[in-house]
């Protein structure tokens, strides 16, 4: 099965307790929002990190995308809070 690399930043990373992991990639039409709802069912830090999806932002293969984007054939999904650089 194709794999998906998940990467987390800032308080999402801290809540989950890791910065990266590999999972089985879902069907291409599954959206990021639906996928993180599934991850949240694992409970613990995932549930805490993904409790309020509207506080989260995402990137697929290092490009910012809306949470309602399908994961498609991406190799990397990053999940993080709104950026605060500059």
């Amino acid at each position, binding site marked *: 099965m194709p794999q998906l690399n998940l990467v987390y*930043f*800032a308080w999402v990373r801290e809540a989950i307790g890791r910065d990266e992991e590999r999972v089985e990639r879902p069907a291409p039409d599954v959206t990021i929002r639906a996928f993180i709802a599934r991850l949240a069912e694992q409970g613990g830090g995932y549930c805490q990190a993904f409790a309020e999806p509207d506080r989260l932002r995402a990137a697929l293969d290092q490009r*910012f995308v809306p949470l309602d984007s399908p994961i498609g054939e991406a190799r990397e999904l990053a999940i*993080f*809070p709104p950026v*605060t*650089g*500059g």
Partner: protein
Amino acid sequence: MNRVSIQAADFDPAAELAALEACGGGGVASFTGIVRGEGGLVALELEHYPAMTTAQVERIVQEAADRWPLLGIRVIHRFGRLEPGERIVFVGTASRHRTAALEACAFLIDWLKSQAPFWKKEHFADRTAWVEARAEDDARAESWKR
């Protein structure tokens, strides 16, 4: 001459300005961001997305290059642990005339704030806190959309 550096090390604004002045234009504009020591802040920790940051900042620089007639763009963004008074970010632009240099400089820093994958964590003596994105910063970035 457009150049992006994402680095832990400090930089020398005078040397960066001199390089922009050497682009042969009539004006150079710049912005240097510095860690504010308000509220007992001990340090600011900047995290970023190494696989994405440089490419994303280069896209922002390209957008500026497409929109204004610039002779040079320089962006430096630091990451890691920074103490109050330390420089965080540098944006410099060179152009034949002031308007392009000043506008592009403002655009670049506004977009870096809302479109570059960096996250700031504040360290105080007794606690830490992730900085929340400000609606005002998003609005400023949005105002450059066309």
